[in-house]
């Protein structure tokens, strides 16, 4: 339950209900599909039904002849536009030419082939059924390991080995560590393809005014400014003649941290037909052509001493890239490698990534992006090591954390963990479940034949992307604060929140700093013509990078207010807080509103001071932030059916200072739900001909209210030097910590049957088979 707000109390740290909610709960918010414009046309895209095929011919005549159809475009019409950009760079990276529409060949089911534009969305849909495409189907490959086998069908004929890149990273002396190890544990661990499935699909409205040569693009995106820069490039437009507006965005989870063919395509169409045009992705399309997440096959090895001290870590990572690189596709597995030691003192690590092309939709950033895969791997391996050494998994973990005094802690992969007390959240979680009692209860349950398990995972997360040298396109963030002449406050953030609640948390920060009511503050975002350049919302960065940018802008603004206050109060001993400046000698006060009015009226100005009250700050973070935490899951497997019941879910997170605990809980719950989805039920399945056979929500199982457990949250606070607010990101934490805790608990439930590892998702049939076969899969 939220508290209501009064003016002068401190707001940061309070459970305040959100400023963005009134429009959302009344159905009056504007999402992209809610936009209507005079003369607006509708586009519908014809997509390949084949995983791989040559296009022999396309006949658009029957479609173009329909009443209401104004245009049909195919690949050759739009050759001048593009390509779809890849923002990641790796040595030797092979980047396939990624055209807006397919030319003479299609590379995955869903590959756009033609676009029909009509006066009405029903007519546009009818039109694509009338386009005749003659395909010559080719052999396709969907399994990344099979794609690496000699003789596999080549996704791109020019690269018959299907290898987009290899990447090697090493730290310490891994070979020596493995040679000297007393125990080596190995396991193949997969992290399946997932469909991000924001409940709002993607969508674009493009409006081109030819007289001014101005293109306005409304897009459901997480990165309005980057989108403007890149789409302007794709279309050959001057960037300052393009405006991107991000209306309300119905969820992204990384899938809208991208630049898609359709965004440039709609710009192209609007310019061609001279009318606004709208394209709204159907759910079928969302499954087929919006990026997927994960897609790992990992081979892990851990070297350790018999006493449980970890020594070395080896990883061979096969990343299913899909047919093309989207914005960050090849970069995602490199994040896994950076984070592969988890929270443990592995001083010797070696990793090799192979990025593999398949005839599937590209993978890219999906909630956690690379870190859930890494955490899943290392946390599963720690359990396997504990099993091998017959050690308690909690004890093994506690033994291998760096000590509180070892921060900043430099990892073998070259990261500097800013601050931490990794034992604290784990100990708190163990207390919350009463661990020793719980283990006894488990022994009793197992003695009675019940399959009860306890799973632990700890996680560290690299977030707050990030220092610019380590982030494609820059990792800083921007904020502007204005006090309007009437005294009302406007915040412009370069982040692009879409559910995270920064309109509220940023207002809390500004209200505290300025001492004004939250009601007097509005936070604007997502319009490139209103907001200064910004990077956007992803990678748990909005509060952790956008927050400090706002904080510094507020400091600059306060300094200016003070100058005006001193001038107006005719004193050099002035304190500004609580929405006013006070002269410490006379006690005379002046409200910010009066100061604002005077600053804009500018009858008189303080020395070396410009009129107006506005400050902008671009903040470059000195480092990533590394939040951490621990999850514990208690589960029971139904012996007869293999169904898993999550009996308890405890998540303890250390994201340092919390601006709004209500919202942090919401982020953790939502993150855990997506982790549980991966652990238990979600999987994008391509068959051997690269058909996506979980092509809709009827076959792709999302967690439902009835399948989600109650989540108990806890927090520890370990001060961090990383930014002035002492905040770290929390958006991805729940997801990252979740899946290994769930799988560890289920493996624990079945371990007496000889089960060591189970790949996700833990479907009931899979578990039932293991139970029936006494652990032999």
């Amino acid at each position, binding site marked *: *339950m*939220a508290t209501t707000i009064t003016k002068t109390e401190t707001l940061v740290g309070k459970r305040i*209900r*959100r400023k*963005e*909610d*009134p*429009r*959302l*709960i*009344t*159905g*009056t*918010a*504007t*999402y992209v*599909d*809610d936009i*209507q414009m005079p003369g607006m046309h509708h586009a519908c895209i014809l997509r390949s039904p084949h995983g791989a095929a040559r296009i022999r011919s396309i006949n658009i005549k029957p479609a173009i002849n329909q009443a209401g159809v104004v245009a049909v475009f195919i690949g050759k019409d739009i050759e001048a536009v593009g390509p779809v950009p890849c923002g990641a760079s790796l040595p030797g990276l092979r980047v396939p030419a990624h055209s807006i529409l397919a030319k003479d060949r299609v590379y995955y089911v869903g590959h756009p082939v033609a676009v029909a534009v009509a006066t009405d*969305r*029903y007519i546009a849909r009818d039109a694509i059924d009338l386009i005749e495409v003659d395909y010559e189907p080719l052999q396709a490959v969907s399994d990344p390991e099979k794609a690496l086998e000699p003789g596999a069908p080549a996704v791109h004929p020019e690269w018959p080995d299907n290898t987009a890149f290899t990447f090697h990273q090493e730290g310490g002396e891994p070979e020596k560590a493995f040679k000297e190890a007393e125990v080596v544990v190995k396991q193949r661990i997969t992290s399946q393809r997932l469909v991000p499935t*924001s*409940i*709002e*699909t993607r969508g674009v409205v493009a409006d081109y005014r030819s007289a001014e040569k101005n293109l306005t693009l409304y897009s459901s995106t997480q990165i309005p400014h980057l989108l403007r820069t890149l789409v302007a490039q794709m279309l050959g437009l001057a960037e300052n003649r393009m405006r991107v507006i991000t209306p*309300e965005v*119905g*969820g*992204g*989870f990384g899938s809208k941290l991208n630049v898609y063919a359709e965004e440039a395509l709609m710009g192209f169409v609007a310019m061609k037909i001279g009318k606004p045009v709208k394209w*709204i992705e*159907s*759910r*079928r399309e969302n499954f087929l052509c919006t990026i997927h997440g994960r897609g790992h096959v990992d081979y892990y090895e851990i070297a350790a001493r018999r006493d449980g001290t970890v020594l070395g870590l080896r990883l061979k990572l096969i990343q299913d890239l899909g047919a093309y690189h989207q914005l960050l596709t090849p970069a995602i597995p490199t994040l896994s490698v950076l984070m592969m030691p988890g929270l443990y003192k592995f001083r010797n690590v070696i990793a090799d990534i192979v990025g593999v092309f398949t005839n599937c939709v590209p993978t890219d950033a999906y909630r956690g992006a690379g870190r859930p895969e890494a955490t899943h791997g290392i946390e599963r391996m720690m359990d396997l090591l504990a099993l091998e050494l017959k050690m308690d998994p909690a004890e093994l973990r506690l033994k291998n954390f760096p000590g509180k005094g070892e921060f900043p802690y430099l990892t073998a992969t070259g990261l500097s963990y800013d601050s931490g007390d990794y034992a604290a959240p784990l100990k708190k979680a163990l207390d919350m479940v009463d661990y020793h009692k719980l283990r006894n209860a488990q022994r009793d349950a197992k003695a009675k034949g019940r399959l009860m398990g306890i799973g632990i995972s700890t996680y560290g997360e690299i977030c707050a992307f990030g220092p610019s040298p380590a982030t494609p396109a820059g990792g800083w963030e921007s904020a502007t604060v204005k006090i309007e002449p009437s005294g009302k406050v406007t915040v412009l953030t370069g982040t692009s929140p*879409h*559910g*995270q*609640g920064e309109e509220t948390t940023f207002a809390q920060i500004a209200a505290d700093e300025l001492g004004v009511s939250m009601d007097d503050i509005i936070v604007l975002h997502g319009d490139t013509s209103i907001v200064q350049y910004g990077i956007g919302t992803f990678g748990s960065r909005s509060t952790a990078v956008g927050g400090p940018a706002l904080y510094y802008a507020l400091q600059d603004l306060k300094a200016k207010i003070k100058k005006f206050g001193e001038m107006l109060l005719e004193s050099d001993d002035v304190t500004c807080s609580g929405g006013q400046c006070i002269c410490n000698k006379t006690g005379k006060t002046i409200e910010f509103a009066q100061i604002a009015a005077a600053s804009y009226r500018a009858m008189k100005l303080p020395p070396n001071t410009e009129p107006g009250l506005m400050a902008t700050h671009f903040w470059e973070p000195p480092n990533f932030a590394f939040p951490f935490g621990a999850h514990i899951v208690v589960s029971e497997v139904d012996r007869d059916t293999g169904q898993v019941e999550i009996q308890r879910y405890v998540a303890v997170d250390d994201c340092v200072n919390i601006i709004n605990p*209500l*919202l942090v*809980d*919401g982020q953790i*719950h*939502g*993150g*855990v*739900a*997506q982790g549980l989805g991966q652990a238990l039920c979600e999987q994008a399945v391509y068959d051997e001909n690269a058909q996506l056979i979980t092509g*809709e*929500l*009827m076959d792709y199982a*999302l*967690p*439902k*209210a*009835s399948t*989600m457990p*109650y*989540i108990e949250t806890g927090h520890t606070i370990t001060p961090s030097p990383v930014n002035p607010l002492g905040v770290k990101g929390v958006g991805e934490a*729940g997801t990252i910590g979740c899946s290994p805790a769930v799988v560890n608990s289920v493996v624990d439930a079945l371990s007496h049957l000889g089960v060591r590892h189970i790949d996700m998702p833990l479907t009931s049939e899979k578990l039932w088979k293991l139970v029936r076969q006494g652990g032999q899969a």
Partner: protein
Amino acid sequence: MTRKITLKINGKSYSHEVEPRLLLIHYLREVVGFTGPHIGCETSICGACTVELDGKAVKSCTMFAVQADGRNVTTIEGLATDGRLHPMQEAFWNEHALQCGFCTPGMIMTSKELLERSPHPTDDEIRHGLEGNLCRCTGYQHIVNAVRAAAAKAGA
């Protein structure tokens, strides 16, 4: 090919010539302009399009506008009266039962019907009652809290 339909939406009468294939959700959103109900899937799974038809929660994307001829529709826009939020809207706000907000109109409509049919539901009943509405942001916990809170408030 078109057909005239007349129906009440949020208490007001509307009449239009429509194609039989026009889905009720498109009619509400694009013809009449109630964009509160949303479209999240094609297959009647996600529930973002939920509205009330003659007092019952239905998925307006799995219904033709012609089927609603002569009937009463309530959308999320029809819940607040005289600028006062419906208790379920208030509860969703207080409990932080939404993040991106896209599923919220449908979720509120289903929750409202749930309490009308069962004023004092258990958590389990709430969770089962919301099976036809997907949310990808909240993990449902705050939604369950909101429905429980609205029930408690109504019972108080």
